[in-house]
């Protein structure tokens, strides 16, 4: 019986006859199509990533969930103390930065979905018309996405620097009396940095929509223009509805961007007054010489729960659609 099983298994991995290399050694005796080396290779190919994935993703995620219910300074395992829900209690009632951070993550998402997403769609539609220098524009708008966010943060910090930065130097707002503190003023800095985030996100959205638009069947447009629809009507009634799959990708990508927002702010002002974010609170608590690993993990768990609450319904609905299709 076992032989049968291996046979069927092997049968599944048999390459299509046309692809079989003529030089390949045919093993003698058993009718095995895979040599021992091949099986070893396949085993490694499946095994190594599994081990890496389990240790680096699952074990760490579960460990941080467990640690969220403890206090630990990272020195020796015997200093881990079980404290139950204390970290969460402390977080929700006592931490002056926690609720602002949650709020800023939400604002981050709302702004990204309201400003750069439609803008990216608009640019994509324009570029899709194959106007002249289309590639130049495409490159220009996409460039901010290619540059590392740390570098982006650094460049924008130079622009916003209240004493010597570009903006204040031009409008003369760096003198005592009328001084605009783009980085330090909590009423301004979040919006200032969101401009930088939008600047980058627009290019990202544009490229996603551009890909989606390339997939729109040209005959649909042709048909709608034969029916006498103008450009706006064609877009609204024919093109946009076919972009539905792209829209879901865009939504998920934007949610992820809003939840993982970190580098830009960290370079800009380290998440100080007015720009607190959950990811920065996690980092501030965990990294350092005597870290609050339990407490930082509790914040990470909150972030995880929010992410799951958003992603799981999306996955469920996607899979349901695929199954019914």
């Amino acid at each position, binding site marked *: 019986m076992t032989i049968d099983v291996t046979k069927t298994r092997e049968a599944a991995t048999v390459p299509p006859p046309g692809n079989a290399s003529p030089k390949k050694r045919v093993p003698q005796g058993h009718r095995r199509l895979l040599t021992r080396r091949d099986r070893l290779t396949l085993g490694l190919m499946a095994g190594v990533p599994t081990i890496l994935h389990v240790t680096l993703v699952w074990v760490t995620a579960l460990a941080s969930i467990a640690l969220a219910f403890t206090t630990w300074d990272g020195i020796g395992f015997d200093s881990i103390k079980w404290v139950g829900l204390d970290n969460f209690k402390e977080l929700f009632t006592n931490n*002056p930065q926690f609720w602002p951070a949650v709020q800023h993550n939400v604002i981050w998402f709302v702004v990204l979905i309201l400003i750069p997403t439609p803008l990216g769609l608009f640019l994509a539609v324009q570029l899709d018309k194959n106007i002249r220098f289309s590639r130049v524009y495409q490159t220009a708008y996409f460039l901010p996405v290619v540059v590392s966010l740390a570098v982006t943060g650094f460049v924008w910090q130079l622009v916003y620097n209240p004493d010597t930065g570009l903006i204040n130097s031009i409008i003369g707002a760096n003198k*005592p009396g009328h001084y605009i503190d783009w980085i*330090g003023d909590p009423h301004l800095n979040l919006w200032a940095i969101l401009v930088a985030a939008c600047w980058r996100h627009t290019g990202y959205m544009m490229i996603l929509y551009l890909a989606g638009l390339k997939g729109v069947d040209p005959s649909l447009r042709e048909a709608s223009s034969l029916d006498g629809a103008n450009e706006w009507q064609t877009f609204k009634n024919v093109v946009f509805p076919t972009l539905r799959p792209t829209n879901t990708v865009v939504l998920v*990508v934007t949610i992820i961007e809003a939840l993982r927002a970190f580098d830009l702010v960290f370079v800009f002002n380290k998440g*100080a*007054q007015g720009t607190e974010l959950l990811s920065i609170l996690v980092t*501030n*608590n965990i990294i*350092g010489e005597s870290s609050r690993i339990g407490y930082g993990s509790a914040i990470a768990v909150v972030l995880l729960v929010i992410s799951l609450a958003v992603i799981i319904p999306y996955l469920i609905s996607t899979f349901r659609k695929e199954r019914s299709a």
Partner: protein
Amino acid sequence: MHLSSHGQPLPGSSRRAVLRGLGGAALLGAAIPLLSACGGGSGSSSDPKTVSLGSNASDAVPKKAFADVYAAFKKQSGIAVDVNTKDHNTFQEQINTYLQGTPDDVFNWFAGYRMQFFAAKGLASPIDDVWAKIGGNFPDAMKKLSKGADGKYYLVPITTYPWAVFYRKSVFQQHGYEVPATWDQLVVLCKRMKKDGLVPIAFGDKDAWPAMGTFDQINFRLNGYDFHVELMAGRASWTDAKVRDVFDQWAELLPYHQEGSLGRTWQDAAQTLVSKKAGMYLLGTFVAQQFTDKADLDDLDFFAFPEINSEFGQDTVEAPTDGFMVSKNPKNHDGAVKLLEFLGTPEAEQIYLKADPSLVAASSKADTSSYTALQKKAFEMISGAKSLTQFMDRDSRPDFTSTVMQPALQKFVRDPKGIDSLLTSIERQKKTIFASS
């Protein structure tokens, strides 16, 4: 286009490429435990002629200066120092895992609670035997700084620098200002400077630590050294009226600080002193690094933060001190002891300061003849101090200062109203942190 970044497989990768990628991933996996074991690579340290040393002196000037010191040590004792240098900030962030892994025999660290914390965790060796030999080289305040909470010595200090109020002699001369000796004189001077079109006190708190320096100065001038220690160690309460007084006092001075401080680094703030737009600046002597022009540097001077409470006068100086510690199980204990004995001599400090004149020696016996005027003044200020403090983030738990005090002080600086609720919040958070271990 393919959305490789969202997890869709890349088409057309050959088996070989995938295997190569796997090899890369495996390497990456292997690199992670290595990170925590940095510095364990000094396999030569079982050799009695070598001492391994973990160094945070990653900047060019201190790195060279220390290399000179170790060369002199080798010449004298025949023992080589195997230096393992790491980026300054990375060293601090990893100190935890570094000391728990396979640390070097000797490592760079800071005096104060920050040193005591690791000593209490059993991650450092007591070095009373070293101090039996070098004790005579140091003033009492330095001795106090080098002891752990258990009364044993854990650190050999090498360099230090004071915090003070910096100003430009020419600006004071031009306007006929006098160095203020008391709080009231300071406030009057601020008012005059404002009228003269100067920013009275330069200030930049973007990095969140400079405000701690201002708090420290007002606190120990008003409440004395002992209260500073009690407060930083988590024993005194932040809702104590004494702390409230510090913030009230500070609020009186805050309107004379440079506007928009939360968006400005200390370097940018120092530039306003360089360009004579600001009258004064409270910082460590490292502010001199921003004075690149020799004439400007000669014009720079400082005075001790003015007296607030006559009971304490100006007896305390904030002087962050750097030094060396021995890890818990040094492979070459005798060599490490010899090295620390050497580092505790005035000669070693002089070799260091020759190459890095921005600091002063921790020893009271070091030869000060080659010091600049600024260094001489700094040295006198420290040697004459009754007590030395380190700085809020060196005198207290770093997790408390970075996650609670930095944002709290920034909040105060931006909006000095609502001190009471701020202090209640600090005290509540402090209790959980100090209770945690």
